[in-house]
Structure formats: C-alpha cells, structure tokens
C-alpha cells in the first residue's frame, strides 16, 4: 500500500500572484483517514491536486511510495490515486450513469465481469443502483456529486481523495458519504477529504490537518485539533471548534470534539450526591 510524501512543496500559479503552497512538508501513511480543513483559498484544493499529478510543484517534490510523482506515468497515477472534484460538472460527461461510472475502470483495462462488479458496487455504495440508464444531466446536483464519487470509487484506487464531498448533500447524502469513507477505510484504502463541516470532520476522521495561507498549522487527531489549547490557532484562520468541543470545555470535561465523546464524558462524570 502506497504512502504519500510532500517534501518542501511550493506552488505558485502561473501569474505569480500568490504562493498557494508555501513550503509543505507532509507524510500520509497507507490506510490513513485524513481531513484537510482551512479557510477558502488556504491551499487545500491546490494541495490535493498535487497528490494525483494534476498540478506539479513549482519547487519541492511529491513522492508516492518513495518515488517522485514526476516520474510516474499518467496511467500509473490513475491506478493509485482517485480524486473526486468539488464540482461534479468538471467531471461528468457520459450519456448514462452507468457509462459514466464504467469509463474510469475501463481505461484502467478492466472489462467483463470484473468491470460489471466494480460498477455495480460503486453505484450501490452511493445509492444510484437503480439509475444506471439515467442521463447524468437529469440528476439533481447532489446526486451528480454522488455519481462523480461512484466513478472514482469504481477505479478501486488505493488512495481516495474527496474535495468537499458533503457540500450540497442532505441528511441522507451526508450519511452516504460517511458510509463510503468508512468502507474505504475499513478496506485499507487511504482517504483524504477536504471539508468545511467541522462536525463531519470531527466525527469521521482520525487525523485532521489545518491549513492557513499555504502552510500547515495544526496536524493531529480531532481530540487534539479541537481541544482548547488549539483554539487560538484554529481561530487565527477563522475556524471554530465544534459545538460539542466548546460545550465540553465549558463544562470542564476536557476535549470532546464530537457529540458522542461529549455524552460519554458527561456519563462518566462523578455525580454529586
């Protein structure tokens, strides 16, 4: 299983207005479950686009399994890293939902029963199994996003990157995305997701990385990134800890980043007699 390394990565977009990435050093091991958070424009999308070779560092290196990404072929990368864009429109093009999902794995050389199985599984994972013949453009925007997710899932890449997967999803859609991430993690795949939803981040991921102006300012499990000592750093980039984290701190219960951890802490609290 591959690991990812960023070694002093700087990225300056062609017009040179901004250093979108300003010297990133980061290692993500195989099978990790990582959330990437930070303000709009802090470099999250730019960073993940370096992980599948869509963008190349201006200086520095990106390594997949210790080998420089620049030396991987497009086909090798496509087999290893699946990236689901924030906006499904930049991804969808086929005439039917099924054809859309088949495209990626077919390009990886899959066919016959294996292809059928991969596509069925991906469609079922996002709840689109009965929409195989539907034109993708007849789906609402939230289901188009789930379709874009399915097309990347079907490629069965060991690394799965999701750019704001819950945006525009209703309660059920968010549960679907959470399920997909959980299943991918259980299967040993590396999952990296960008999100602005702190509750979703705290309750879904093992590791949270916080970006500010092209740099990494916090990196750790939700219990430390949302703990009181980290609030100043979070707020320096206009992020707020979750409601549960704030309530837990006010009650003197320590770090309780999620509803569940807060309720556990309340339950274990010694009762005044």
């Amino acid at each position, binding site marked *: 299983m591959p690991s990812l390394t960023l070694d002093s990565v700087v990225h300056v977009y062609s017009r040179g207005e901004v250093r979108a990435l300003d010297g990133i050093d980061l290692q993500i091991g195989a099978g990790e479950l990582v959330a990437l958070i930070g303000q709009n*424009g802090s470099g999250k999308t730019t960073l993940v686009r370096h992980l599948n070779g869509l963008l190349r560092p201006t200086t520095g290196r990106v390594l997949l399994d210790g080998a420089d990404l620049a030396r991987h072929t497009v086909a090798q990368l496509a087999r290893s890293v699946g990236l689901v864009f924030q906006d499904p*429109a930049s991804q969808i093009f086929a005439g039917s939902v099924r054809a859309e999902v088949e495209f990626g794995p077919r390009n990886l050389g899959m066919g016959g029963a294996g292809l059928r199985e991969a596509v069925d599984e991906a469609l079922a994972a996002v709840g689109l199994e009965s929409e195989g013949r539907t034109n993708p453009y007849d789906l609402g925007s939230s289901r188009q996003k789930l379709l874009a997710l399915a097309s990347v899932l079907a490629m069965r890449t060991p690394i799965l990157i999701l750019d*704001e997967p819950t945006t525009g999803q209703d*309660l*059920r859609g968010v549960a679907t995305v959470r399920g997909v991430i959980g299943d991918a993690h259980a299967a040993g795949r590396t999952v990296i997701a960008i999100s*602005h939803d702190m509750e979703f981040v705290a309750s879904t991921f093992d590791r949270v990385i916080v970006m500010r102006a092209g740099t990494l300012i916090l990196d750790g499990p939700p219990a430390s990134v949302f703990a009181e000592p980290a609030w100043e750093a979070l707020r320096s980039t206009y992020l707020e800890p979750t409601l549960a984290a704030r309530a837990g701190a006010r009650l003197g219960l320590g770090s309780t980043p999620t509803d569940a951890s807060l*309720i556990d802490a309340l339950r274990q609290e010694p009762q005044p007699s």
Partner: protein
Amino acid sequence: MLTLDAVTYRYAGAPRPSLLEVSLELREGEVLGVVGASEAGKTTLCLVVSGLAPRTVGGTLSGRILLDGEEIGPLPIHALAARIGIAFASPATQLSGVAGTVYEEIAFGPMNLGLPRAEIIERTERAMASLRVEALAARDPERLSGGQQQLVAIAGLLAMRPSHLVLDEPTAQLDPAGTTLVAEALARLAQDGASILITEHKTDLLAAICSRVVALEAGRAALSGAAGEVLDDPRLAELGVAAPSRVRLVRSARSADLPTKAIERLAEVLV
C-alpha cells in the same frame, strides 16, 4: 413583499410537478428559510419566485406570484431583475465572465442599473467590505478558489441592493467564517427592509437569521412556521434535513439516558 398563492410548477417534459400548491408569504424585512431533502423543490422554488421559471427555463405554472401586490408574469425581466436579486449555489453560473478583476465584477451589477459613478463606487466598496473581499479587489475572478468566487458573486448581488433577494444555498462552498459573514450581511439587509428567501442545508445558519422556515417534501410545503419551532421539529429528519447542532446535541443527550442533572448542565452551557 412576495406572495405565492397555490403555485404548482412542472418542468417541460417532467412526469410530475416539482412544486405542488405552494403558498407562502415573504414579508418586508424578513428572512424566510427553505429546507428540504435534495430534489424536494428548493432550487425550483428559487427559480419560480424570482420569475426565471417558467420564463427562461420553460415548463408550466399555475397559481399566482405577486411582487408587492402585482403579478410578476407580465413584468419585463429587466424590471424584475432590478427588484429581485438571485444567487445560485454555484458561483460559476453567476459570475459575469466579462470582468477582469473582482472590483469590476462587483461593480458590474450597479453599472447595469445605470447608477451615477460615485454611487457605483460607494456600493462596490461597501459590498466588498461587508464580505471582507477587499484584498481580492485586483484579482481575476476566474482564478479564485470556489469559496472566494461565491463570496464575490454574493457581493455583486449585495451591491445591486435589490428589495428582494433569493439565495439558493449561497454558502455551499464557503468556509465557516465566510458563512458567518454572509449570514451577518443578510441579517443587516433584512433590518434595512429587504425581503430575503434563502435555501440552505446549514440549519445552524437558518436558526441564526430566519424568522420563519418552510420545509419542502416532494414539492409540497410539509412544515411551515416560526424558525425555532420548525427547526426543533423531530419530523425534520424524516424530511432529510439535519437539525441545528444545538437541537441535535440536546436530543442525543436526552436519548442517551444521561442523569437529568447532566442534561441540565449541558443545556445551560448551550444557551
């Protein structure tokens, strides 16, 4: 004031209507929240309320839509555009595509209203300040992040100062700080008398700024009432809508069989 009276709307070729007998009133100075599962009719409602459907997207409509007492059907689109501003979930559909800088993009609307130069400048700068995008003024709108584009698109809308605003998931791509800025800007506009209709999945935001909330289910208004009541309604989950964090946290604490004392302490710190 905008009034919908038993409005039913069906897209061209659709097997069933996307809105069914929807009646609602958007009063002056009010923020009305619209929630519902995906494909419950939220975006369609925005298109219908702003006069874009059926006018530009086709389909058939029955019932009446009144803008300050006047049927919107016969009003020319430019007259409507000056009075009802609309923002879409995806900023890409919103940006003019002709502006080379963020400043020009935001000034585009007021310029089209034919306002005097000084007023265009004043409105543009004020809109930029209210959403804190001044630092982006000289940047190319096409080269911003998705969230920055969304803020710029909303700033452009604010600069037109329409008396009615229709916003379809305006904060979808925004970070928490951007979401708060938009919420504050909308609350200020409503205080100044604007009527605002907003669809959102972020019920925390709606709880903060709405006076009333309507929940749609398959094109019908399934729940409707004071924001506090609708957002606290346990039926919201069946409609595919997440409760605000506060409501959800207290509810999970209650169902977790915690000692009453612990629930009380929790409720206290959540106020």
